[in-house]
């Protein structure tokens, strides 16, 4: 048994070494991005650039706001993200409706919702643009937000979670004269904290990263999001790698911080979705 344990220990060490090498490969792009964002562009393009900046500079980050309109992009991104939380609330409402009521058409409507997951974005892209164009919503923030406001996957996860809440609780509240909406906001929402945490983080990440609709709908720079702005930056300052890396760092680092802070909930989300 002793030699068995020793072999086990040795295996763990070998696996650990492989994982560390893989991990270094995985984080190298991030590290390189961050270090480069503190270098001057002259240093990056010179032959003598090393791993660490010779002289740490914040000028690239200042340039993001002075040469480019990153302040505007940041504001738009935050507005879009805030609206996505409204969308999450609509997903939660729909999930609750399907989880806790029996009504005519329930199953067929739910299957229809699930079926929308199969539709590739490329098919809906052009028609949605035409619809928004007819509604006069192209080049508006509303046009950017509306198409992705609700989603089948979110509704599905909310329904799964909310079906586990006991019916007696809701019956008792109804006997006490509570309205249906009151029950939803005062009983269901507080009980759904775990799924709300998961969905909230995913909603934030998706809103922060949103690229496709802002790209299609926003013709005017005043509606650009950070992603679209960064793509513009790459076009305008193609040879200023330091500025590009500052822009990328500005987008990536907040998400990594949020991820590391809330990782427990994100990883739990994989168990909530029942994918075992």
């Amino acid at each position, binding site marked *: 048994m002793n030699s068995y344990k020793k072999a086990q220990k040795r295996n763990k060490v070998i696996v650990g070494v492989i*994982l560390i090498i893989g991990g270094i490969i995985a984080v190298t*792009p*991030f590290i390189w991005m961050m270090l480069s964002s503190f270098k001057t562009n002259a240093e*990056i393009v010179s032959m003598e650039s090393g791993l660490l900046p010779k002289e740490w500079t914040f000028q690239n980050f200042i340039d993001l706001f002075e040469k480019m309109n990153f302040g505007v992009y940041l504001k738009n991104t935050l507005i879009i993200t805030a609206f996505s939380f409204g969308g999450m609330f609509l*997903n939660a409402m729909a999930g609750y409706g399907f989880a806790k009521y029996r009504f005519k058409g329930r199953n067929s409507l739910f299957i229809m919702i699930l079926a929308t997951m199969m539709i590739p974005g490329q*098919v809906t892209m052009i028609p949605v643009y035409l619809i928004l164009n007819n509604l006069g919503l192209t080049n508006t923030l509303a046009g950017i937000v509306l198409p992705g406001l609700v989603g089948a996957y979110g509704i599905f996860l909310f329904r799964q979670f909310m079906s586990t809440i006991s019916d007696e609780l809701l019956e008792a509240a109804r006997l006490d004269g509570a309205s249906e909406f009151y029950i939803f906001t005062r009983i269901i929402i507080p009980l759904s904290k775990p799924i709300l945490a998961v969905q909230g983080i995913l909603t934030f990440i998706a809103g922060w990263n949103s690229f496709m609709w802002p790209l299609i709908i926003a013709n005017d720079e005043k509606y650009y999001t950070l992603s679209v702005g960064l793509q513009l930056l790459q076009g305008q300052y193609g040879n200023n790698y330091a500025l590009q890396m500052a822009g990328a760092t500005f987008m990536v680092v907040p998400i990594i911080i949020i991820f590391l802070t809330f990782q427990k909930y994100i990883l739990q989300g994989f168990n909530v979705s029942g994918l075992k």
Partner: protein
Amino acid sequence: MKSANKKAPYFFISPAIILLLVFSILPIFIALFISFTDLSLAGLADWSRVNFIGIDNYKNILADPIFIKAAGNTIYYVVIGVPLVVIISLGLAILINVGDGRFFSFMRLVFYSPSITNIVAVSVVWTFLYNPNIAIGLFNQILDLVGIAPVSWLLDPAVAKLSLIILALWRGTGINMLIFLAALQGIPPEYYEAAELDGASKWNQLRYITVPMLKFSIFFVSVTTIIGWLQFFEEPFVMTEGGPLNSTTSISLFLYRNGFQLNEFGYAAAGSLILFVVIIIITLFQLRGQLKNNENEM
């Protein structure tokens, strides 16, 4: 349930249903309709200039050399990319599942982190890493250290596709690794203990216990990854714009270009429906294979 208000459920579901109807269901019918017309920017301003042209869009697109090139590239992405994603993410999951200490849960975060980062930011960073100039691009600097000549990562038509696949692998393995990890943790440890007592090697344990027990997750990951690669868009869009010589143009990029840069809405809609049909056929085909597999086991 009988005391619940009859209208209440409709109140809760209608906002989501209406939005999905308008932005997911209705668009399919619109796409189908406009794919039989020559709708372009001119037609958008004046609907009387839109003509029905039957299946001309479909005929033209299937004869369009760039569409055929894009379809070939997309097949290349799927054939090379999907097996690599499945093998690497499963391999990482198995390695991480070896231990349960702090180190192993930390490594899980490390490998997952590329998945959540912004694709545009990541593409900008990788374009920089792939820079062929040895003073600028990190990858060629590393190759130079070990004495290998610089590679034209994104500029050589033969290499550019692989360069995009490497980036997509880096970004795509994390989430699938988590799916495999959840599945691995669901395998009863008694199976391995029994195999260990019978003297089964680690390789045989992997072959006869782990892989069969993970059949459903492997199926799930393969299907979602194939669908994802069929829609490959942002990486070529930001990094190569489909070049050099359309060697990295994917079907999605082709559709975007025709739809929003050339404003050939009808033409692009026809192409998108072809992609949709392909996705449905592949999914059904795999689903059937999976069901058949299950029957054989009974």
